[in-house]
């Protein structure tokens, strides 16, 4: 299939449609609105359900209803709207029904602004709302990845009967990149056996998000925890650059001694910085978690055995940072570079942080970061031709 240039928000919508989403319920909020608008056009065309809910609270509860019906269903929102969904999310989790949530994060707290951010990490990754559970959280860094992870989200949601969140920031939602869309899937022929479809020719089904007796609720929680553990064992995903073996830098060789950890948009910005630092001869690599939950803690702990230090880059005050520290477990220093309030970290700032980390972890600083890449035709190549990378 030919590539298309698509906005993240719209690409996710189209990917969901091709993954067979049968119902969408949502409420407008920047920087996610294009997703809803796209759905408002495409879903009715396909004879599927689109409904603009009266609020995010209503939207998530409509999602709950459609999920109980055994239908592939999703909603999307951004930070303040996600806050309003916390109760509903907790109900969905307690009920073990599948649902896909797209959170296109924006600057906070409060009304904040509509600029990109990653400050919903805690509220989406640690657990949405009250109670003990964890949704699966997928964090794309490119529009293509957003498409692929959206399809995966529906598969995982159904496989584990869980909430799967696609967590991205406004930057990815708003930006266009070439994407290859998946083929259109057929919709499921029949809803699953547990679905609430009317007790025709079978005993009644019920979906009950509570257990009045503490022992029963604890049993339900144990089931949830088992599921979470199962997911943690099987579904960890990440992408690494310049770290070791196959993905280590061809030019500068060498396994990474410093590890940058960043997800989503921050991850791709960090990639630019890592490339630049590699060019300066710093043995640095990038670990980009794709599943924030389950978190790639084992892999990081493994890297920590040999790494001299870690740098976490986020568009928040340091949230994934805690998970990295928990994984590293004191084996190596963990530094942090974060921007807040809709500010996006810049490659040169990150590169500087890499240098600092390099220095801090006792290696002579014998290199300098050059200015940004500049224009070929107008000014000639910015870097010495032989480096071939930036």
């Amino acid at each position, binding site marked *: 299939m030919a*590539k298309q*240039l698509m906005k993240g928000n719209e690409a996710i919508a189209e990917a969901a449609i091709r993954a067979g989403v049968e119902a969408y319920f949502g409420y407008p909020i*920047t*920087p996610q609105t294009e997703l809803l608008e796209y759905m408002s056009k495409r879903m009715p065309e396909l004879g599927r359900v689109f409904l603009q809910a009266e609020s995010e609270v209503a939207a998530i509860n409509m999602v709950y209803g459609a999920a109980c019906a055994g239908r592939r269903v999703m909603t999307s929102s951004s930070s303040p709207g996600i806050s309003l969904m916390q109760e509903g999310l907790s109900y969905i989790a307690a009920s073990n029904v599948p649902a896909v949530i797209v959170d296109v994060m924006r600057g906070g707290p409060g009304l904040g*602004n*509509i*600029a990109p951010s990653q400050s919903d990490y805690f509220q989406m990754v640690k657990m949405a709302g009250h109670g003990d559970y964890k949704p699966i959280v997928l964090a794309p860094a490119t529009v293509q990845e957003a498409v692929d992870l959206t399809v995966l989200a529906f598969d995982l949601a159904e496989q584990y009967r869980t909430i799967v969140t696609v967590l991205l920031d*406004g*930057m990815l939602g*708003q*930006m*266009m*990149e*070439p994407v290859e869309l998946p083929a259109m899937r057929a919709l499921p022929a029949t809803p699953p056996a547990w679905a609430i479809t009317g007790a025709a020719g079978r005993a009644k089904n019920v979906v009950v998000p509570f257990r009045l007796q503490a022992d029963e609720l604890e049993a339900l929680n144990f089931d949830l925890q088992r599921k979470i553990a199962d997911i943690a064992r099987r579904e960890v995903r990440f992408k690494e650059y310049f770290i070791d073996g196959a993905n280590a830098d061809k030019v500068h060789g060498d396994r990474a001694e410093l590890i940058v950890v960043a997800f989503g*948009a921050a991850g*791709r*910005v*960090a*990639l*630019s*910085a890592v*490339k630049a630092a590699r060019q300066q001869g710093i043995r640095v690599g990038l670990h980009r978690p794709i599943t924030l939950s389950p978190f790639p803690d084992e892999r990081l702990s493994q890297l920590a055995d040999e790494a001299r230090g870690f740098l976490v880059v986020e568009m928040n005050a340091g949230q994934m940072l805690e998970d990295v520290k928990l994984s590293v477990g004191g084996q190596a220093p963990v530094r942090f570079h974060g921007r807040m309030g809709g500010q*996006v970290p*810049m*490659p*040169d700032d990150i590169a500087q942080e890499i240098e600092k980390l390099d220095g801090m972890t006792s290696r002579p600083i014998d290199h300098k970061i050059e*200015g*940004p*890449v*500049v*224009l*070929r*035709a*107008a*000014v000639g190549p*910015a870097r010495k031709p032989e480096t*071939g*990378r*930036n």
Partner: protein
Amino acid sequence: MMHYDFVFSGFGGQGVLFGSQLLAYAAMEAGLHVTWIPSYGPEMRGGTANCTVVISDEEIGAPLVRHPSAVVALNYPSVEKYEPQVAPGGLLLYNASLVLRPPTRVGIHCVPIPASDVAAELGNAKLLNMVMLGALLQITGVLPIGTVEQSLEAHLPARRRDMLEANKLALRRGAELAQEPLVAA
């Protein structure tokens, strides 16, 4: 390897979005990696709009840059905003028809294009974005004009089909205009 980062900036309505997206389409269709990102801030309505396009022959990291290698400024506020931001040695291409105080920064290439006037000459003020894009293509050589013309055919909205030739003409006029200042640079 090749790597370009461009900012297009101007009033809403000056065609910043379409001009920059067209370049992104063309890059994609030329098989390159490309990212296009708008600033979707409060200035969206009425105020100044700007978009960043990064084109590269390998996986693109940051889609936003602090110091773009080239800026296409369609109005004066854009010149004011981006003059200090252009990368050293970079390019500031500006719409000389609207920008009466030319940029003065040394160490960058400031190229005036009387785009609004040219567009008016071509019969439609809205063509100014194409004039500027033509100039940008010419100066940077990022893509051949022909590639962009093909993308134009594919992506010009149906209701503006009648403007296809005019758009192409504007692209070429822009490219022509850019010859001279480049030599002068």
